[in-house]
């Protein structure tokens, strides 16, 4: 791994566009996936660029993540990636991608991951409000970073999942390039590049960014505190039978949380099959037993099952909460449960390609207390 610096002449976005452009022009990648304004311009979405000229509209640092790029990379590589592809990704997306690779839903062959330090992202509605109020979300973020501050624009806040994310920095073992936004000093942008790639790009080894390390340490401290606070809030308000029912009481079973989840990859989710489409009379039976029956039934079954099926691989991107039309904080439940369930296996989702996901493997001598009789 080699430390290099990119000179920022106009702004980091332009510098990054030029850098990405050089990857395309030098044939290091033949296509590159970068966030860019969506058609119509009201959002930012991963966009696949083949033409280097078009990169002038890329927004690699726009603090918005309406979908996970991991899902898009899965689309582009699942059945074989025919061309050399680059992807500019935040760490939650990289971690989700690592999980998808384990589940054979994506391939890393021919893929160059360009990871960026993630200061945080906004909810789409906040992002739109900022744009409408004349605040440039990206520029304000970069201005703060240049002062060594990782903070949202005044009067706004990042998505809750981002404020409690303790993995904002890409792992250089997985990302071929890491763009050290946290070390941006207003004039230069530090990057980490794998040696063979650095050679192709003609980058010289420089000194690492001390500033970046300092900023990251400060950020992680704040994030850990926030994480503890939020998880404590869930424990207090969302657990126990009543707490849980209250937490999910606005659920309309639209399945948005499942649809947007980068880890929920099943082609045919059990909840979209007729497994629980009962005969009409059954609903009346249940209503008879209890006196009443809330419709549609089984929303708690849906959430509890989803927790059991994928919480071991939940990377905490928070898209489930962002996609919820009823503003249910689904992500906090998954993070709270995930933390403990993942700890059972000493597992951190997306940490390493070498570790199989807990649901993919087993050990003969584990959980020995389970299964044994008391006598």
């Amino acid at each position, binding site marked *: 791994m080699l430390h290099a610096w990119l000179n920022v002449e106009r702004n980091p976005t332009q510098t990054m566009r030029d850098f990405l452009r050089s990857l395309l022009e030098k044939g290091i990648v033949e296509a590159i996936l970068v966030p860019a304004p969506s058609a119509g311009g009201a959002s930012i979405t991963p966009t696949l660029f083949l033409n280097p000229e078009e990169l002038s509209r890329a927004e690699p640092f726009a603090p918005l993540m309406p979908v996970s790029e991991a899902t898009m990379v899965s689309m582009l590589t699942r059945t074989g990636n025919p061309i050399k592809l680059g992807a500019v990704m935040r760490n939650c997306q990289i971690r989700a991608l690592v999980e998808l690779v384990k589940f054979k839903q994506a391939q890393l062959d021919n893929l160059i991951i360009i990871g960026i330090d993630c200061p945080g992202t906004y909810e789409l509605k906040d992002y739109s409000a900022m744009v409408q109020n004349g605040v440039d979300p990206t520029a304000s973020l970069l201005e703060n970073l240049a002062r060594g501050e990782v903070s949202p624009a005044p009067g706004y806040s990042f998505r809750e999942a981002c404020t409690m994310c303790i993995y904002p920095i890409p792992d250089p073992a997985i990302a071929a390039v890491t763009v050290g936004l946290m070390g941006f000093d207003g004039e230069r942008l530090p990057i980490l590049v794998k040696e063979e790639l650095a050679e192709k790009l003609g980058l010289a080894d420089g000194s690492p960014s001390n500033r970046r390390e300092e900023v990251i340490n400060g950020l992680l401290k704040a994030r850990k505190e926030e994480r503890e606070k939020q998880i404590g809030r869930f424990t207090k308000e*969302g657990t126990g039978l009543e*707490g849980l029912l209250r937490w999910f009481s606005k659920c309309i079973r639209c399945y948005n949380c499942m649809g947007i989840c980068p880890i929920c990859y099943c082609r045919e989710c059990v909840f979209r099959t007729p497994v629980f489409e009962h005969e009409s009379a059954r609903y009346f039976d249940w209503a008879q037993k209890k006196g009443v029956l809330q419709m549609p039934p089984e929303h708690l079954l849906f959430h509890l099952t989803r927790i059991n099926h994928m919480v071991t691989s939940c990377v905490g991107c928070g898209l489930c909460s962002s996609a919820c039309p009823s503003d249910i904080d689904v992500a906090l439940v998954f993070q709270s449960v995930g933390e*403990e369930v993942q700890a059972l296996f000493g597992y951190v989702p997306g940490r390493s390609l070498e570790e199989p996901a807990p649901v993919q493997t087993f050990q003969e001598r584990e959980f020995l207390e389970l299964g044994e009789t008391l006598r």
Partner: protein
Amino acid sequence: MNDFEPKIIAFVCNWCTYAGADLAGTSRIQYPPNVRIVRLMCSGGIDPIYVLKALLQGADGVLIGGCHPGDCHYQSGNFKARRRVAILKKSLERLGLDPDRVWLRWISASEGQLFADTVTEFVKFLKEKGPNPFKTLQAL
């Protein structure tokens, strides 16, 4: 609470616990009639959704019966079941729900007595614990 008769849903492996239950019957071993058996081809076939469904529908306990470690008819199904049960119990616990209503037990085809004892013990345990609070909830 004396007249409370718990209802147990048992998901049992075709090759071991189901045969064990059968043996308990053919051996005329007495045990409480509180258990409703669902036969699976392997304990590894248990999806937590069915355990959760049973609990949310008001089953007082769920018993999952599989082959002893190393004895799985399909080599490793019971180990997979054990992981799933570990995840299920931990997540129930973290959510403040009762993980103790789910029991995983290894009961072989020759252990009719053990099957009867397990059901007896589970019924006693559940009688002390009381009915599943989900039983009366309108929202499942």
